[in-house]
């Protein structure tokens, strides 16, 4: 058991990050090469200025009209995405592990704050799931995979929350926590989670078509 834990806390972390970052890099290079080969016109229309203008406009909370028309979903979704990165990266116990391995560290979130924020992430995911059942137009689009993706993201946060409180089966919960975190990293490049890479690209292209060619706003 100890050697298994050593594996998932050691080499497996490396493997996960290599697949996560390597997978996204290969995907990006693949997209850029395919654009060059099959749709080179895209390079004629994409401009850095209009790409950043569009991405920037969509990063400002409640700036796009679309965001103002669905404020609850947008607000929750926006916070969720921020916390998704913020909580794991600034969690004291994660920073301790990184410090042990690389002798680097950075300021951590207060444990109690992190605990509440973790609950926030879980609540947001429950909201997304409920929305998929309750809102007819979202329900119409939803397939089994959408719930699987929600569960996959929820698992590391839920087990992290349980592990912190050490209510039940601490050791097992921690193992599931580590494994599920690694699983999410590994599947990012191969699932719709890769929108973390492709969404800025589609936004940049649309932003450029609107800004550069159409001389209109796209938010």
């Amino acid at each position, binding site marked *: 058991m100890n050697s298994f834990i050593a594996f998932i806390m050691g080499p497996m972390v490396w493997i996960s990050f290599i697949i996560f970052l390597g997978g996204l890099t290969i995907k990006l290079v693949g*997209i850029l090469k395919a654009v060059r080969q099959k749709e080179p016109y895209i390079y004629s229309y994409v401009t850095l200025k209009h790409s950043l203008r569009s991405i920037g406009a*969509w990063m400002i909370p409640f700036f796009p*009209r679309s965001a103002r028309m669905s404020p609850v*979903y947008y607000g929750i979704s926006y916070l969720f995405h921020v916390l998704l990165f913020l909580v794991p990266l600034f969690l004291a116990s994660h920073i301790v592990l990184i410090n042990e391995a690389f002798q680097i560290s950075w300021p951590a979130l207060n444990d109690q704050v992190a605990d509440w924020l973790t609950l926030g992430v879980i609540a947001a995911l429950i909201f997304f799931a409920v929305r998929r059942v309750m809102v007819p*137009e979202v329900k119409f689009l939803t397939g089994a995979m959408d719930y699987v993706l929600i569960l996959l993201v929820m698992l590391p946060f839920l087990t992290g929350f349980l592990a912190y409180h050490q209510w039940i089966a601490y050791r097992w919960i921690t193992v599931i926590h580590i494994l599920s975190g690694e699983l999410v990293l590994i599947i990012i490049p191969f699932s*719709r989670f890769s*929108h973390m890479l492709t969404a800025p690209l589609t*936004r940049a292209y649309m932003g450029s078509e609107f800004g550069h060619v159409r001389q*209109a706003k796209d938010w």
Partner: protein
Amino acid sequence: MTDAPSSVEKPTDPAIESGLDRLTPDRIRQVIQQVLKNETGPRFKAYVETCMRCGLCAEACSYFLSNDRDPQFMPAAKVKNTIWEMLKKDGDVSKDFLRRAVRIAHLECNACKRCAMYCPFGIDIAYLMLLVRRICHKLEITPQYIQDTVNSHSVTLNQMWVKDDEWIDTLQWQEEDARDEFEDLQIPLDKVGADIMYSVIAPEPKFQAGLLYQAATLMHAAGMNWTMPSTPGWDNSNMAMYTGDNEISGRIARAFFETAARLRVKRIVMGECGHAFRSVYDMGNRWNSWVMPPFEVVHALAFYHELLTQGRISIKEKYKKKVTLHDPCNVSRGRGLHDKAREVVNMVCEDFVEMTPNREHNYCCGAGGGVINCGPPYKAERMVNNRVKAEQLAATGADVLIAPCHNCHSGLEDVIQHYDLKMEIKFLGDLIYDTMEKKIYEPGA
């Protein structure tokens, strides 16, 4: 204003039905695979892989809003019911599926691109719907009326079977009539080296010849050095662009630009049409491998703005009735001309009231993107599918609706009639013609 969608009888289109009769499962699979594999690339792949099924596009779509938020009409659902299914089954789809797919792509989407502005990722669903139309074109199941306009383009290079001599005849007829107002007025044909080639869409000579008259008086009064071609290439409309017949679409645009090149004009000015503008300033050039059009293409709205701000024409007395302005997709969301349009309206009219939403966010007329060109069999459902527009217009309380685009104009005329809105509909050119000083511009005067 509450017709339920189910109350509309779904007609059977003879072109769709006879096309479907000819198809075999092999042929269907082969065409879909060919288009999806060879005619798409990473852009298509990214759109399919990036959509998170969040449903935010629903709020953008006038079809969805007009049909009491029926999920079938939301943009992503239209993709789900066409492209996703074709991908999932690798082209192995039934004729019933295709019958529905043609209707979705041709009659339940105006390709207005409003949804691209409501998707956080900027996924271009209009592009995906045009891809479905491309597949329908290759399967030869395009709706009859719009296919006929493409056939006309193919034979005559104009949309409405206008014969070469009829075209010249109509211009001369309008020239003669306009000489009642301006003694020396000419519609100069094939004047090589003129500053401006003025171009129109085929419905103008076919049944709106008065618009040629108005444009000629405007050009004459403003003292422009202009010309119109006497040969095919005068029509800037492009219905093939909307049926996915890219080859004919490219041919039309090429003939158009070559006509301008033959006349060695400095720029092309065009009448109040949206899709035609888009076809020459943004689409036709791409098919013919120009990043940007080889000529400066000026839409009527920008041209009016230029004439009025330069003082080449002046307004005698402003138009008195309360007016509102419809922003056509292809000139507003499509080219950002909405602010210039407002300046012109304010220079010409006394009492202007906005409709909401407006500018890039305006609702589509429901006619554009080739929908109205699918013809009278589909008019009833077109009216049901654009209830939201009627409500938006009614809320302005305006007496006159300005619609500076042919498609919008025809579509909104139907909406006004169907929903019994007490509103007149005008082109911006109509109002300028009515209110301008009928005298010839003299520099420095």
